[in-house]
């Protein structure tokens, strides 16, 4: 019989791996909600591609996390048998998709961050993280280009699209601070060269976002306060619903193999 996996007090490498994995999974899960409902087939396909990549990254990372936990733990145990407080994804990934502009804006803000993060992780001293990052970086580079292009398209498209995407960016801004907040886990993993101090990613991210928003004729939002907590397991009210939907079937038949 399956038991829940809890991460309270887990070691830093595991938490760090799960932060990357959970962020990829929850974003992939959210994006996959769009499948069949996109504004046109090409966009449906493009967004599904990103979702697939994210889910693929999540799998590699969960496999690594499972190896850290021992031979009895599988990638699926980690995805389907943890509660919200043992999930470590960034809060921004669990926000509802909203309209296409909301999804796109989140994607742009996240992809840009993710690009700098994974670029740095390509030099990780942790062999597994480095190998995963090196595999993932090509896809992530493409995501960042695609979502930046679309932000420009919507920003510099019609009056309506300009207003919509600006509002999306404004609404999402307070969730971006978490990208760059370091805690002990981050700092220890950075100290041994396995992880990245997220603070070091901030200025590159800011310049790129400024550059793209300027091309898109959009205004860079301002905020003096950012949301945080996802990495530490303190989430929004949305994550519980995501997990209920995602985990229901394996939890309903805990003895089954799929």
């Amino acid at each position, binding site marked *: 019989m399956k038991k829940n996996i809890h991460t309270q007090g887990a070691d830093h490498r595991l938490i760090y791996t799960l932060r990357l994995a959970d962020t990829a*999974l929850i974003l992939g*899960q959210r994006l*996959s*909600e769009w*499948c*069949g*409902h*996109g*504004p*046109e*087939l*090409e*966009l*449906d*396909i493009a967004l*599904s*591609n990103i*979702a*697939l990549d994210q*889910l*693929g990254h*999540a*799998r590699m990372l*969960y496999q690594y996390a499972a190896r850290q936990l021992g031979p009895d733990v599988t*990638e*699926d145990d980690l*995805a*389907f048998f943890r509660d919200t407080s043992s999930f470590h994804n960034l809060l921004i990934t669990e926000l509802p998709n909203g*309209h*296409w*502009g909301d999804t796109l804006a989140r994607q742009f803000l996240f992809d840009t961050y993710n690009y700098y993060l994974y670029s740095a992780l390509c030099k990780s001293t942790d062999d597994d993280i480095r190998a995963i990052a090196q595999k993932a970086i090509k896809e992530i580079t493409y995501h960042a280009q695609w979502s930046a292009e679309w932000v*420009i*398209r*919507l920003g*510099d*498209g*019609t009056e*309506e*699209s300009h207003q*919509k995407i600006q509002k999306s960016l404004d609404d999402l801004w307070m969730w971006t601070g978490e990208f760059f907040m370091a805690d002990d886990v981050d700092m220890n993993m950075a100290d041994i060269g396995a992880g990245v101090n997220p603070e070091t990613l901030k200025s590159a991210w800011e310049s790129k976002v400024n550059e793209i928003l300027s091309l898109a004729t959009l205004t860079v939002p301002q905020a003096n306060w950012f949301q945080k907590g996802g990495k530490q397991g303190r989430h929004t009210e949305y994550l519980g619903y995501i997990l209920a*939907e*995602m985990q*229901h*079937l*394996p939890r309903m*038949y805990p*003895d*089954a*193999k*799929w």
Partner: protein
Amino acid sequence: MINEEKEMLERFQQYVDGENKVEPKDWMPEAYRKTLIRQISQHAHSEVVGMLPEANWITRAPSLRRKITLLAKVQDEAGHGLYLYSAVETLGVKREKTIEDLLSGKAKYSSIFNYPTLTWADIGAIGWLVDGAAIANQVMLCRTSYGPYARAMVRICKEESFHQRQGYEIMMTLAFGTPEQKAMAQDALNRWWWPSLMMFGPSDDNSPNSALSMKWKIKRKSNDELRQEFIDKTVPQAEYLGLTIPDPHLKWNEERGHYDFGPIEWEEFYNVISGNGPCNKQRLDARRKAHEEGRWVREAAAAFARKRAMEMQEA
């Protein structure tokens, strides 16, 4: 009919009889064009509407591997929709117009997608049975007389076979899994079997358009032939799974060299086609919503493209 047209019609028939492919710029009878437009559009719509019942389980797939496979599969269907809308465009009808006909309820799509996916086993059953039935049809269409359609089909068939194997593999996992999983698989087979048989359309004696389609080599086998092929292929697969096909009349007929099967409830078929299925409204509403809510995005992309084109011109 004036003589000239009669002559062209004869020449067209000879051309087709000679197993030559008709290409977009070739002359073709208006009825041929119309039949193709209707058939390929329906096929395209079926791919797109068909995304919905399966997409319904992406967020609830029971493992990461299954989640990814399912998402990739539904994405493939979007791709098939694209090829097929392009094939319709070669016949002179814009995608936008074709989609409008779907959303207004004027055009049809495969009736099977008006049934709900109620459990995970339905994802297996759809892959196994629905894709299986689709393939039987599509393999035939790889040799259809209209070139762009035939080429789209070759591409689609390859992916569909892959999907079908994935579906059957889900069914195997369930049928050889826990008793609860096996019951789930049997329940899915019970619900999807008859609608799958109906996918081939009415029996030949009730299928008025079939003869002309066969003559023009748009189709190459009758509905009943295809249905029989499908049954003959599928029954042993069900037996291997240890599942029971919900048809008490199903029996191997040594003499015919085929399985006999029970009567199909055509009343239900026509009811579902005409809009009364469990999910007709839900499916069309979902497509309409996506289309309506996506309008501003499509408009923005078009406006942006125009702006950039003008800038290029000015530069």
